[in-house]
């Protein structure tokens, strides 16, 4: 158990709902769910969810901390916003799912090899480097995220796609060396760093 996880578990002993409200993006909406299940039924990847959103909200209220944060369900979210527009109680479910995923990540509770969590992290790291996403590098690092052998396989599997993209000039091998970037990179990075600090501080106080 990571230290932060330990600390949080301590702090909100037996009140996971409060923990979520304090630490998860849009978490204070969770209490407003009336268990109608429209979100669960609306999710295009619904069948892949071990615990659909409405059930996760109930689990949060029931204090099932580990089951929720350790679940890979919220990583199934494709941000299609079906749940948000249909929710009769106005819960920003997509954001709550992202928030839970992010919080689980912070606490290091994401199940190992959860591919989307890895990809999402890479995406973030990738854009943090240059301020803009480098699709090629992103793709490559993705293919190799499960080690070299795996990577070669995936790369080969994706070869034709890549070829098609290159032919149509929608992918540029040269990108691997450098590629697009924000000019004021330092300013960009400072701003985001600052934002992260502020967020950590807020959560700290909010939770306290």
């Amino acid at each position: 158990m990571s230290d932060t996880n330990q600390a949080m578990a301590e702090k909100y002993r037996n009140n996971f709902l409060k923990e979520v409200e304090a630490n998860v993006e849009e978490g204070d909406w969770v209490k407003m769910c009336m268990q109608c299940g429209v979100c669960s039924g609306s999710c295009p990847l619904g069948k892949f969810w071990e615990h659909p959103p409405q059930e996760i909200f109930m689990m949060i209220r029931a204090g099932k901390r580990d089951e929720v944060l350790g679940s890979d369900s919220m990583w199934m979210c494709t941000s299609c916003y079906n749940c948000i527009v249909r929710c009769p109680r106005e819960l920003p479910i997509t954001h709550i799912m992202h928030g839970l995923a992010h919080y689980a990540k912070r606490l290091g509770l994401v199940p190992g090899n959860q591919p989307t969590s890895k990809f999402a992290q890479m995406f973030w790291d990738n854009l943090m480097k240059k301020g803009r996403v480098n699709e090629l590098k992103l793709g490559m690092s993705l293919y190799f995220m499960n080690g070299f052998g795996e990577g070669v396989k995936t790369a080969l599997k994706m070869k034709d796609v890549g070829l098609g993209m290159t032919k149509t000039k929608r992918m540029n091998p040269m990108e691997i060396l450098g590629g697009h970037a924000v000019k004021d990179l330092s300013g960009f990075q400072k701003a985001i760093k600052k934002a992260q600090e502020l967020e950590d501080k807020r959560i700290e106080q909010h939770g306290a």
Partner: protein
Amino acid sequence: MAKHEYSFYPGCSSQKGASSSNYLTSVQTMCEELDIQLNEIPDWNCCAASIGYAGGGELPRLTLSARNIALSEEHNPGQDIVATCAACWLSTREAAERLEEDQSLFAEANEALAEAGLKLKNDTPIKHMAEVLIEDIGYDAIGEKVKKPLEGIKIAGYVGCQTNRPFGIHGESYENPKYLDKLVDTLGGDSLPGYEKKVQCCGGALAFSEPEKSQEMVKGIIEAAYDHGADMIVTPCPVCQMNVEVYQDQINETYGTKFKMPVVYYSTLMAVAYGRSAKDAALDGQVIPAKQLDELAAK
């Protein structure tokens, strides 16, 4: 017709050599025809789309968009921000609204931006190009420009998710938006209003990490298009376009299907209908060529 001017946010995928560079090309052609001037936001950054959440917390992600808006407000004052990418549009508009409703977040975002010497006013409307076409230009004006009607071409309007939800185009429904069909009709093509997968998610966010899941959904989208006799699919979203177009071979492999369904941007359709060259319409960007359009453009 009065000249329209916008502060333009192309987004990563529209960059040269990126997955939807063809989108940018056709949009530029379309804008020339419609007398729309796009002023790119200088030094814009990535919006983190809706997948940055694992690494980036709420405020850092909001700050990404805040920076773009601030830059726009500084360099293109008084101009509405326009994005062609659904994810860019959504993230930016969502950020603007979150910062609007939560003043403490707004203050923090500005505190962060100060590090880069920027300041956010956050009073700029943020539009998707489709909104510009429908609300600012209008179907009539769009129709007037048509030189080569897309006669006899059956086109399934695939709206996807993020151009449609949670904001969508004013007056359209989440379940059955009709604007792509209206646009196709306006361009003289045959729309397929009965196409029921028009708002089905393509699983874009999982395309890389869990392709089998997203490709299963893409399969449904293409199948339905064939069922309705579509010659091609039109979409306003680069993620949708790429996802639905480029994995068809893999899908055929997995499911034994024989898909070869062209997926084009509305801007490509317009460029062709406006009589511009295949190149201007970025038809050379089609991994699966849209033959009828090639022919029409060649005429």
